[in-house]
């Protein structure tokens, strides 16, 4: 018995020692101490912030990943506990004179109010904090990574950063934590290995335990302090009836069955019309109305992006068991809006153009760069991409990948196919500057009929559309989420459909008798980034 007690005591002592060793600062920056990071998370009363500033229109976050099948059931609890926070700070010998420099890049009042609330809550546990809005080259000031991705020092100068990570696929949340890619968190082999695992398969069931593992690890380390999951709100006027069409993540493209919608007046008015040009559709994949209705994709996703994937322009598709070969067969009779044939040659052209174009969504960029021969083509050493083969007569294209892209099918639900006949010979670095974007031609459910830049764009049904012909027009005005014109236009009966993430808009829209809003959970996490590298 004595031996058993001795052994248990020894094991406990070792565990305590290990715990003590890991729970301390790893460099001169006190924020490298996990106890300090835990304390900061516990000092923030997100439930109070939710019910006051956000009018209960957010979900309090407990990890980077949104709620859903990939959420681990074993995450540590960092809910509001100021006493525990004080104790952890005392244990970590927190320097009470240190003032945490917090940066953010949203210029709205709500963000300033949130910063003020967090400042007050930190003060309650004895942590001083200031905050400032980043301006100018925000990306460089926020995201520059240190030359030494393990020991630092940091390449950017702040202690905390408030920002968001919006993702279509769950890997996007963690891939930037790979050694050498993260501006705040030093890399380590354990994290790198876990990142490899979550990118190792296209099967969600295979990946689920890996996501659990990486989530638990990250939240135990508290590399970031998750604050809340933002919701997206779709609003519609009583002029519009979706006729059973699904509601989904409207920032992207999903199967919303727009050709079957009923619009009483015959014209659906919306925002996100162009001001100077139509933005090319590979960057903000579904943000603009023309992204969704003028262009078409090979595949289509369900409302939760990446789920219920089906065909759109493709008649069928086939992926090899190892995920390294993907082939599509196009539906017959596909046409561009100018009446010319849409063929697999256009698909190949679009993929090649995307390999060289810099202004690209990460999801698309990752897929096209994974194609065999993409690197040589992108750096100019070859004129063609060996991994892309097609047969126009058979309407077939096959794509071979050099490495597994677990989200390749999701990419093809978002990747708009562009017409080679219009864009051949373009300088990929200046894709957006091509005159095509003054009056784009696509293959989607609606075609552009008239545009007065910065005034309106009118789209009419595409009578050749493979998915049916809508019986209404779309009129888009140049107004955007948060620009103040949404509410004005909606109140004046000039807004039938759109989406917003602004909770103040939601209250105003719900107060209008002709408008309704529908909340959609989206993978969009707001958080505090915590600088763990030593100061520059």
């Amino acid at each position, binding site marked *: 018995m004595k031996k058993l007690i001795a052994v248990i005591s020894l094991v406990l002592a070792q565990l305590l020692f290990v715990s003590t060793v890991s729970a301390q600062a790893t460099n001169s920056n006190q924020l490298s101490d996990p106890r300090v990071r835990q304390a900061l998370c516990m000092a923030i009363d997100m439930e109070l912030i939710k019910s006051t500033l956000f009018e209960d229109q957010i979900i309090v976050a407990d990890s980077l990943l949104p709620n859903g099948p990939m959420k681990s059931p074993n995450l540590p609890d960092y809910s509001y506990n100021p006493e525990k926070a004080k104790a952890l700070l005392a244990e970590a010998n927190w320097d009470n004179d240190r003032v945490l420099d917090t940066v953010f*890049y949203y210029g709205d009042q709500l963000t300033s109010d949130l910063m003020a609330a967090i400042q007050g809550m930190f003060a309650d546990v004895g942590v001083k904090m200031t905050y400032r809005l*980043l*301006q*100018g*080259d*925000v*990306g*460089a000031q*926020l*995201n520059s990574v240190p030359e030494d991705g393990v020991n630092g020092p940091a390449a950017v100068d702040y202690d905390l950063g408030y*920002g*968001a*990570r*919006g993702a279509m696929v769950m890997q*996007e949340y963690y891939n*930037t934590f790979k050694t050498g890619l993260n501006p705040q968190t030093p890399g380590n082999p354990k994290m790198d290995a876990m990142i490899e695992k979550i990118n190792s398969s296209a099967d969600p069931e295979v990946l689920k335990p890996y996501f659990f593992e990486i989530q638990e690890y990250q939240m135990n380390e508290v590399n970031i302090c998750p604050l809340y999951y933002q919701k997206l709100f779709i609003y519609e006027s009583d002029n519009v009836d979706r006729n059973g069409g699904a509601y989904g993540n409207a920032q992207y493209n999903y199967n919303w069955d727009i050709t079957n919608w009923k619009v009483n007046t015959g014209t659906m008015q919306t925002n996100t019309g162009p*001001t*100077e*040009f139509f933005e090319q559709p590979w*960057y903000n994949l579904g943000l603009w109305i023309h992204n969704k209705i003028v262009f078409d994709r090979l595949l289509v996703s369900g409302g939760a992006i990446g789920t219920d994937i089906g065909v759109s322009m493709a008649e069928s598709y086939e992926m090899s068991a190892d995920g390294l070969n993907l082939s599509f067969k196009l539906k017959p009779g596909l046409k561009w809006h100018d009446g010319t044939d849409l063929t697999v040659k256009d698909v190949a052209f679009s993929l090649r153009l995307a390999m060289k174009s*810099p*202004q*690209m*969504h*990460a999801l698309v*960029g990752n897929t096209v760069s994974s194609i065999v021969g993409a690197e040589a083509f992108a750096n100019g050493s070859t004129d063609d991409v060996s991994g892309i083969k097609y047969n126009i007569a058979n309407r077939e294209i096959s794509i071979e990948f050099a490495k597994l892209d677990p989200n390749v099918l999701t990419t093809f639900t978002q990747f708009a196919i562009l017409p080679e006949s219009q864009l051949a010979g373009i*300088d990929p*670095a*200046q894709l*957006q*500057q*091509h*005159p095509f*974007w*003054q009056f784009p031609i696509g293959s989607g459910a609606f075609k552009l*009929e*008239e545009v*007065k*830049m*910065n*005034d*309106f764009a*009118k789209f009419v049904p595409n009578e050749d559309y493979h998915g049916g012909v809508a019986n209404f027009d779309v*009129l888009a*005005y*140049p*107004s955007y989420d948060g620009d103040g*014109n949404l509410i*004005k*236009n909606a*109140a*004046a*009966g*000039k807004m039938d459909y759109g989406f917003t993430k602004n909770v103040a808009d939601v209250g105003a829209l719900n107060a209008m008798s002709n408008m309704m809003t529908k909340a959609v959970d989206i993978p969009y996490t707001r958080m505090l980034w915590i600088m763990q590298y030593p100061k520059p």
Partner: protein
Amino acid sequence: MIFVISFLVYFGLDLTPGDAVSHMISPELAATITPEKLEAMREAYGLNATFLERYWIWLTSCLKGDFGYSMAGGVAIKDIMVKTIPATLELSIVALIISTILGCSLGILSALKKGSATDSGLTVAGMAGVSIPEFFFALVAILIFGMHFQWLPVGGRLLPHYETLLDRIPNIIMPSMVLALALTAGAMRYSRSSMLDVLSREFIKTARSKGLPEWRINILHGFRVALTPVVVLIGFRLPLLIGGSTIIEQVFQWPGIGNMFIRSVRASDYPLVMMISLMYVFVVLTASLLIDLLTALIDPRVRLGKE
């Protein structure tokens, strides 16, 4: 003068944080784009050259008649200006006409009724018009006429079914009236004081002694002379209107040059900002010259080159 101003504007723009690429790539997406790709974009847009090199390239291109392209969308700047200037001119000219007619009429009325309740009321209204910012009037007008009664459109200039000038009238009423409001107040105060000054002159007494009807004395003798300072004021208003309608264009979603200027400044779109700035400079300098000439034409005392 234009060269100096162009250099100062370019220099000022260069001092602002960020560039066109940092505007094009959002902070969230910047985290996922490699520095090499960002560098390639900056190289493609010529942003890696030094300040003086960029200014020199811009200046020499301008002198050759090549005004360049908007960085954000690659549209030729002359095309952007051709599309936006008419919208601003349309709004400004309508506002100027309204404010001139209303301002002069009310100013004369105020002067003729000096000391009366009408005069006091108009004076108070004038002070309010000058003091209260335009955007406040704009929001109140939108609230009442656009949202509550829904008599007028809340914004925009054109719609697909607009074919004639008449179709567009409802869209221009609110922005032009709001823009005209502050101008009316100014013109009214000027007209009133100028008219009062003229009415106390000897030649008015002479006209009265001749038994001329009062309206003839006031309008043909009085107002005509009182017009000189008002014309100068109105002349200076046109360039100010072109530059000063920015806020109204924003509130009413009017697709004019002011709206575009704000967007281009936010986007650090140097070529576009430079050309719009220079256009403002050119318009102001030209208007000053025209006013000098016009003043000399109206007032015989202001003849250039004569003793």
